[in-house]
C-alpha cells in the first residue's frame, strides 16, 4: 500500500471490567480515499471500532492514529470537529431546524454567519434536498430519508476529510436506502473522502465499499475487496455471510429469464 494510513489501529483492545474484551487486539490501516465497510453481527465490536476513531470511546490498550497522530494526545473535542459522523437512527437535534442542525459544527468552529448560510444551502443541494422547502423545517417534519440526508449534510458541513457512519441507512425503506447509498458513494468520490461505514448488511457493504472488514467477537476475521471476499473467502462464517447475497442475486436472475 503506497499512501500513508489516514486511520491506523495498532493492537487496540477495549474491555469493560473483567468480561470478555469488546475489541481484542485489533490492527487495521485505513487509507486515504478508501471506502471501508465494517461488517459483523451485533456485539462483534464494529461500533466500538468506529467510536475509537473520534474518541467517543477510549481504548484500554493499543494506539489509534488519525493522520499519523495518536488520538490520545489530541483534544477530543477538536478531533471530533474535524471528523464527520453520521449517527445510527439520524441523531438530529429535535429543537433545531435543518439549517441549524447542518451548521452546528461550523458554528462550534466559529464560522461567520454568511459563510455558514452559504454552506447550509450548498449542502442541502448536495444531499438533494430543497432549500426553500426543507431549510427551516424541524426534524420532526422530515421523512426518514430526508432526515438521514440532513444527517449526512451535517456530518459534511465543516468540510471533513474523514467520515464515520454508524449503520447510516439501516432504518430506511429499500428504495430510499438504495438512492441514498448511491448518492453518498458519489459524494465520497467527488469530495475525496475517507469513509468508514459500519453495517450489518453484507449486500450494502459489497455495493458501496472498496474494502470490507468482517468482525466477530472483537476480532477481524476477514479483510479484503468485495471481489476477493466473494470469490476466495478463507473462513466458514465469511463464506456463509457472502452466500446470502449471492443466493439472492441468483434467484433474481432466474426470475428475470422467464
Amino acid at each position, binding site marked *: 500500500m503506497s499512501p500513508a494510513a489516514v486511520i491506523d489501529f495498532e493492537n487496540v483492545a477495549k474491555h469493560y471490567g473483567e468480561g470478555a474484551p469488546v475489541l481484542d487486539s485489533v490492527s487495521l490501516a485505513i487509507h486515504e480515499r478508501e471506502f471501508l465497510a465494517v461488517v459483523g453481527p451485533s456485539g462483534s465490536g464494529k461500533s466500538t471500532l468506529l467510536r475509537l476513531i*473520534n474518541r*467517543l470511546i477510549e481504548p484500554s490498550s493499543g494506539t489509534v492514529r488519525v493522520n499519523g497522530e495518536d488520538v490520545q494526545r489530541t483534544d477530543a*473535542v*477538536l478531533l*471530533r*470537529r474535524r471528523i464527520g*459522523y453520521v*449517527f*445510527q*437512527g439520524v*441523531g*438530529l*437535534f*429535535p*429543537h433545531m431546524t435543518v439549517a441549524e442542525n447542518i451548521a*452546528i*459544527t461550523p458554528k*462550534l*468552529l466559529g464560522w461567520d454567519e454568511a459563510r455558514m448560510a452559504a454552506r447550509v444551502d450548498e449542502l442541502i443541494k448536495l444531499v438533494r434536498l430543497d432549500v426553500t422547502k426543507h431549510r427551516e423545517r424541524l426534524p420532526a417534519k422530515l421523512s426518514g430519508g430526508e432526515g438521514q440526508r440532513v444527517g449526512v449534510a*451535517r456530518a459534511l458541513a465543516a468540510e471533513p476529510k474523514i467520515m464515520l457512519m454508524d449503520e447510516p441507512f439501516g432504518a430506511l425503506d429499500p428504495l430510499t436506502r438504495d438512492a441514498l447509498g448511491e448518492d453518498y458513494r458519489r459524494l465520497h468520490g467527488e469530495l475525496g473522502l475517507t469513509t468508514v461505514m459500519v453495517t450489518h448488511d453484507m449486500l450494502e457493504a459489497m455495493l458501496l465499499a472498496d474494502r470490507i472488514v468482517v468482525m466477530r467477537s472483537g476480532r477481524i476475521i476477514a479483510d479484503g475487496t468485495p471481489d476477493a471476499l466473494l470469490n476466495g473467502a478463507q473462513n466458514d462464517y465469511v463464506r456463509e455471510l457472502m452466500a446470502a447475497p449471492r443466493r439472492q442475486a441468483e434467484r433474481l436472475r432466474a426470475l428475470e429469464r422467464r
Partner: protein
Amino acid sequence: MNATAVIAEAFARLPAYLGGHVAVSLTALLIGLAISLPLAIASLRSPALRSVLLGVASIVQTVPSLALLALFYPLLLGVAMLTERSFGASFSALGFLPSVLALTLYSMLPVIRNTIAGLDGIAPAIKEAAQGVGMTPRQALVMVELPLALPVIMAGIRTAAIWVIGGATLSTPIGQTSLGNYIFTGLQTQNWVFVLFGCAAAAIFALVVDQLLALMESGLTRRKRGWVMGGAMGLVLITAASLAPGISQPRASYVIGTKPFAEQYVLAALIAQRLGDNGLSATTREGLGSAVIFDALRSGEIDVYVDYSGTIWANQMKRNDVKPRGEVLSEMKDWLKRQSGIVLAGGLGFENAYALIMRPDRAQSLGIRTLADLARHAPSLSIAGDYEFFGRPEWQLLRQAYGLSFREQRTMQPEFMYAAAASGEADVIAGYTSDGRIVQNKLTVLDDTKHVIPPYDAVLLVSPRRANDEALLAALAPLIGSVDVSTMREANLRASNGASPAEAARWLWSEIQKKR
C-alpha cells in the same frame, strides 16, 4: 361598616400588601432559581450530591410552611446578635429576610426535581450526537440538553412560583407585610370579606405569574423571541408597579406593632389616630407573634405597641410569683428600663387577663362559681384555650393551685373559642377578660379566689430608640389610665362584629373624651 366600605378599605390597602407580597415572593423565587438550577445541573455528574440534594429538599417540603417561616426568625435573631457582638453590625431578623430565606428553601424542591428529571430524560442518542459533532460538555448542556429539558424545567419553576406566592401569605406573623395581612386581620376581626379578598388577590397574582411564565416557556420552545420578552416584561412590570408605591410613599416615621387579635388592631388604630392628630405619621406592622413583637420593639423595628403585664412578667422576666397590679407594674417598669431600655409609658387602665369561662346554665347546673368548684368537676369536662395558653406558666400555676385536671384539652383560634363555649362544644374555655364576646355570648367568668392568675394590665411600651421622644410620649399620654374594661369590651365587640379597627378606635376615643 357595609360591604362596599369594606371592599373600598381592602382596595386601599392593596398597594402596600401586594407590594410586600410581590417583593418577598419574587425575590425568594429568583434566589431559589439561582441556587436550585446550578445545584441540579451539578448533581447530574454526582449521584451522591443528587441523593443528598433531593433528600434535603424533600425534608424541607414536609415541614409545614408556617413552621418553616417561624423557625427562621429565632435563627436570624441569633445570627444578628452574634454579628452585633462580633462586628458591631446588626440586621433586621424580622420580616423580609426570614420570609425570603424560608420561601427560597420552599421553592427549591420542584425546581431541583424537575431539572434533574428533564435532563435525565434526554435520549442517550441525542447526547452522543452532541458529543459527536464536537460539543464540549458545557456546550452540549447549553445548546442541546437544557433547551430539550426546558418544558420539564419550566413546569418545575411554575410549580415553585405558585407554592412561593401561596406560602408568602404566611409571612405576616413574622412581620412581612403581604396579602396574608388580609387573611390574618380578617380572621381576627371576623372580616370574611378581607379573608376572601386576600385569598383571591394571592390566587390572581399566582395565576398571572404562572401565565407569564407559560408565555415565556412557549416562546422559548417555539422560538418566538417576542413571547419571551413579553413574559419577562410582564414580570418586570408587575414588580415595578407593585414596588413603586412603597418607594414614592413618604416613609412613616413611627411603626406601631400589633399582636394577632382584634383588641390589638383597635389599639394600634387608636395609637395611629393619636399620632396623626399630633402631626406624626405612623404605619402598623400587624399580626406579629407574642415572642416576635417584644424582640422587635427591643431592636427598634417597631416603635410602640401594647403588651400585657402578665405576659412580660412570665415570658420575659421569668417570674412565677403573683403580686398585686401596682407592684407588678412598677417592678416591670424598672426591669424593662434596666434590662433593655424599653420605656413603659403607662397602663391603659384595663386588664386583659386570662380567665376560665363557662356557659352560665352549665355552670349553674353543676354548681360551679369559682375555680375551686370547677376542680371537682374538671375530670369530666373539656377545656379549650388559644395556642399559647397551655404552654404558659399561669396554666401550670392554676393546675397546681386548684388541682385542675380536665378530661380533654384542645387548642383553637380565639375567635372560635367563645362560640365553642356557647354551643357547648367546649365546657370551659381559657378566654380573655376584655373580650367583647364574653358579653355577646352571655358567658360567666369563674372566680380565681386564690388570686393565682397574674394581673394582665394593658401597657404602652416604647422602644429604647424612642425613649426620649417627647412628641411621641406626649401623643400617647392622653391614653394612659383612660380605658376601662367594659369600654374596651364594647370596642372589641364592635371590631369583631364588622366595624373596622379604625372605626372601633374612633368610637373608643369618643368614649375616652366623654369621661374626661
